[in-house]
Structure formats: structure tokens, C-alpha cells
């Protein structure tokens, strides 16, 4: 039983890390209806920039602020050169454009900083903590707390501020938002900037876990089942979905894996999400779709 709880807790905490990446997806999808495939590349790009700047001898906080600045510039450029010309195009065109963006980001990150694997030391201890006979990684706890804090800030931002309200209005209906004078372009740039910041945090945590390397882009693929489980439009869904995916994938790997050959972590979340969608086609917390002819 203690072993099961340990696996479960480990899975839940790993799930929080998935949630962090999924959050970026949700932010952008909510505000602009764009399924941003580049989120994984943004995580990689942000982490590489940070690691590269630290490698140049910059101190951690300065590098963090500078990376944040780079992500904001990226957001502004994306709004100006990708989103604005593609307004009113079908969703699949925008999706393809973000795949193009993925290539650009991957190419630039590796071109500027090189393709080698970098270690990243955030000063978080990675020693296990013992609670009632169950081992929990301290690093995972810090990651979980960070994700929780980020969600709280984002929730406050969405609910309580003027910009947050404008954001929700845009998410609800582009045209209606425009007609009451909400600047669409600025909102989009802002959302992409926020997604960039989330990507930076996710990149730092994932980067210090796996090393800053190209494989970070694959993290996005882990976040997708989280997304469809929780619903594309829900911040809370991203968190709950992440917890479900993290926990179930670890439990399945440990208990189901040996029976059918192992390595099922890659597809299990997808199949789980797929079965789940058959019951709730809009995810756990996704907005109900109302269809009219």
C-alpha cells in the first residue's frame, strides 16, 4: 500500500509539471482560439535562452528577466507577423502556422545557443523527503508549489483585473469584443506574452529535471492528453487533467506495464483521454458546445 501511495504521489507531482505546459496551451486557446502547437518549442526556446545567458556568466535573476523579455518580444512579433495577417482564416491554417512557428523557434534556439545538452541548476534540492514512510521528491514539491502559485496568479488576473475581463470577452466572442472597443491585437500579444512566461517557468523546471535539450519540445506531446482531458478552455481543467494523467500513467506503467511489455507511458494517456472523451466530448471543464444550423 505504501508503495502504491508512493507511485501515486510521484505521478501526481509529475502531473503538475504536465499541467504547467498545458496551461500555456489553454491561455492561448482561450483568448484566440488558436491551438498553439508551438508551446513545446516555446518551452525549449525559453529554457535554452535562460541556460545560454547563465552560461555567459549572467546571474540567475538577470537571466530570468532577460529571457522573459525575449519571450515578450517573441509574443509581439508573433502577433504582428503571424496572427494579424491570418485573422479570419480557418483554425487549421492557424494551427499549421504554429507548426511553422515551432520550426522557426527550434531552429533559432539551436542556431543561437548551439544544440548541445546543458545542465540547469536552480538551487532546488532534489533529495527525497520522508513523510510517514513515503518518499517524496523535494524538487517535485517545489514544482507543484510553483504551478499552484502560477495558477492562483492567473486566476486572479483573469477574474479581477480589467485586462483579464477584456481577455475573457475576447475569448467569448471576437467580434463582440472588438465592437465594444477592446483592442484585439494588444490582447493577443498579451496572451502570447503570458504563455511565454508560463513556458519559461515550465522550461526552467523541466530543464533542471531533464537537462536543457531538444527533447524538451517533446514535453508538449505529454501535455496534449492533459489538455483534452481537462478541456481546451479551462485553466482548472489543465491542472486536474495534469494530475489525472500523471497519476494514471505512473500507476499504469508500474502495474499494467509488466503485463504487456512496458513503455506504455507514451500512449497510455492518449488512450485514457480518448476513452474519456467518448463520455465527455468537451473534456472535464471545457465549454459546452452548442450547435445550430
Amino acid at each position, binding site marked *: 500500500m505504501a508503495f502504491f501511495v508512493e507511485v501515486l504521489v510521484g505521478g501526481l507531482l509529475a502531473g503538475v509539471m504536465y499541467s504547467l505546459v498545458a496551461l500555456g496551451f489553454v491561455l492561448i486557446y482561450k483568448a484566440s482560439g488558436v491551438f498553439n502547437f508551438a508551446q513545446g518549442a516555446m518551452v525549449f526556446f525559453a529554457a535554452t535562452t535562460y541556460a545560454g545567458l547563465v552560461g555567459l556568466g549572467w546571474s540567475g535573476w538577470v537571466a530570468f528577466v532577460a529571457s522573459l523579455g525575449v519571450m515578450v518580444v517573441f509574443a509581439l512579433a508573433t502577433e504582428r507577423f503571424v496572427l494579424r495577417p491570418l485573422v479570419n482564416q480557418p483554425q487549421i491554417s492557424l494551427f499549421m502556422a504554429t*507548426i511553422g512557428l515551432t520550426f522557426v523557434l527550434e531552429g533559432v534556439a539551436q542556431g543561437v545557443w548551439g544544440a548541445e545538452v546543458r545542465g540547469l541548476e536552480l538551487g532546488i534540492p532534489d533529495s527525497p523527503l520522508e513523510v510517514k514512510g513515503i518518499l517524496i521528491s523535494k524538487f517535485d514539491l517545489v514544482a507543484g508549489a510553483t504551478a499552484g502559485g502560477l495558477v492562483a496568479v492567473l486566476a486572479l488576473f483573469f477574474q479581477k483585473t480589467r485586462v483579464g475581463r477584456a481577455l475573457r470577452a475576447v475569448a467569448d466572442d471576437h467580434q463582440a469584443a472588438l465592437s465594444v472597443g477592446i483592442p484585439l491585437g494588444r490582447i493577443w500579444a498579451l496572451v502570447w506574452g503570458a504563455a511565454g512566461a508560463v513556458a519559461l517557468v515550465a522550461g526552467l523546471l523541466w530543464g533542471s529535471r531533464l537537462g536543457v535539450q531538444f527533447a524538451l519540445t517533446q514535453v508538449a506531446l505529454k501535455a496534449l492528453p492533459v489538455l483534452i482531458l481537462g478541456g481546451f478552455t479551462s485553466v482548472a481543467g489543465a491542472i486536474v487533467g495534469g494530475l489525472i494523467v500523471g497519476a494514471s500513467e505512473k500507476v499504469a506503467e508500474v502495474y499494467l506495464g509488466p503485463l504487456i511489455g512496458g513503455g506504455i507511458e507514451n500512449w497510455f494517456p492518449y488512450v485514457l483521454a480518448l476513452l474519456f*472523451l467518448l463520455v465527455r*466530448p468537451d473534456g472535464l471543464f471545457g465549454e459546452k458546445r452548442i450547435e445550430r444550423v
Partner: protein
Amino acid sequence: MIYREAGQFRTTYAADQRVFPITQDRVGMAILLLVAFVVVPLTASSYALTALLVPMLVLSLAALGLNILTGYAGQFSLGTAAFMSVGAFAAYNFQLRVPGIPLLVSFALAGLVAAAVGLVFGLPSLRIKGFYLAVATLAAQFFVDWLFTKVAWFSNDSPSGTITAQPMVIAGFPIDTPARRYLLVLSIVSVLALAAKNLSRTATGRAWMAVRDMDVAAEVIGIPILRTKLVAFGISSFYCGVAGALWAFAYLGTVEPQAFDLQRSFQILFMVIIGGLGTVMGAFLGAAFILLFPLFLNWALHLVVRGDLRPGLLSQLELVFFGALIIVFLVVEPHGLARLWQITKEKLRLWPFPH
């Protein structure tokens, strides 16, 4: 002037229902086929045949399959490569385990197996729409990849899941030279492309388009949604399965499951979007473009920067250019290359006169 249909009257139903109702199109297609079937095999180098034309044709076929699903029936899929993979492994196993099975029959059966797998992963499409469906099809991608790597039976107990395609023989005639392989691929692709073109003009094809444009409305006018979507998934996967079998047998020879990874699915999706959604010609134009552009880019970059750069930088530059090009392309011509061809034809009707 050149491309003018004035004076061409359709006086019978048969004439009205032709695939190419305009004489110039028919002549053009005949010349194209003549060049492809006779001139190219005689003149092209074996490099051009094996490294360019064969993969281009095979990927066109896969793009055609995805186009049926996404372009005509409006269902997103990111699992194209998985269905290709199923086709490749199925064809290999039919050849291996059924003694004396004719090559083309094993290809057709491979297509049917892929279609069956496609039906299974298409089932959720009744409930799930849009990007939810796209992400759901990723399940096929990762599951199939895992299955062929882990279950040794599929690859005849090869440790890494790699299969080596059997030599191709049709009725005692070995398909072993580049030109013969090219002709085999070209024949299969031509027949299936014609079938796709005709399919899009039948009741099935029109039902697909109705579902694509608005499925609730389609349901109201009496189109069975689930059956229509499943047929699209099945036929699309059949095309991808045959393409996968050809990819293994006619192009690579030795295939591992990773040859059909997510990148391949994206590549085919690019072909469909850049070529033009919902057109048969777009699949071919897109495949040619996506395969040739990196070669061109590589050549152009080598011309501009002389080799004293950091290794790997060039391939990263290529990546950046390729990504930027896709974005530019979507901005400039969202309907793809097939639309550009349409515009050219419109212009040719008048040229050289202004009106």
C-alpha cells in the same frame, strides 16, 4: 486564348460527366501521363527515380488519403503515419506468412487492414470534433509505434522492430530496377488518384463535403453522419496503408517503426495544406513542393554561405527558413498551390488580351 472552353459543347450525359470536361485538360493530362510513363523512365537518372520521384509519388498517395479525410470530409487527423505504418507491416506479414500471395493482392490487403484500424480510431469522431479529434488521433500514432516496436510477432522477431521488405515480383516479373519500381508506384498511384477524383464526385463524396461544411445541417437533410465519417476514415486509411506498403517495399526496403513517426504525419499534413485542401491535384503539388523545397534550400544556402560555419548551423537555418516559408505561404495563399493553378488557368483564358 490558349485555355478557352468556348465552343466546346456537351451534347450527351457522358460528355457532361467526364472527369476532364475541357479538351485542353484532357490533352494536358494525356501529355503528362505520357511523359510520366514513357519519357521519365527512359531519361531520368536512377538517383532521380529512387531518391526523388518514388518518395514523391508515395507521399502524394498518403497526402491524397489525408486529403480525403481532412479536405473532403473535414476531419482533422494527426495519425496519418500510423496508418502508413500499419500498411507497411501488414504487407510484410502477408508476404511472409501467406505463401505465394501475389504482391498486388498483399498491398490491397494491407490497405484493407489499415482501413480497419482507421475505422477503430475513427469511431470517436462522432462524439469528438475539431482539435479534440486531432489530438485523439495522436493516440493511433503513439499506440501503433509502440505496438510494432514491442510486439515482436509483427516484425518476425526482429529485435528492434525493423522489417526488410521481400523482393517484389509480379507474375514472375521481378521489380528490381529503379525504373521498374518507379513504374509500379506510378501505376498504383495513378489508378488510386483517378479513383479518388471519381469518388469525390459521387454521392459519397458529396456527403463528405456536406458533413465537412456543417455536420448538423448534413444530418438534418438525412445524411448518416457516423457512416459517412467512418467511410471517410476507412478509405483515407486504405490510401495511407497502400502508401505505407509502397514506402517500405518500393522506396526504403528496410523499415523501422520510427520511419512512420509524428514528423511524417506532419509532413503529410503540410503537403495537404500547402497543396490545397480538398483537391486531388493539391496532394501531388504539395508533395512535390515539400520534398523539393528542402533540397533547394540546402543548395541555395550552400551557395550563399561557404562552409566555414559551425556544423549543424546550416540545418538549423534550413529549419528556420522552412518554418518561415510555411507561415508566409499560409498568409499569402491560404488555399494552397492548387488555388494558384486555378488562378493561372483563369489568366490563361484571356492571355494575351487584357479583357
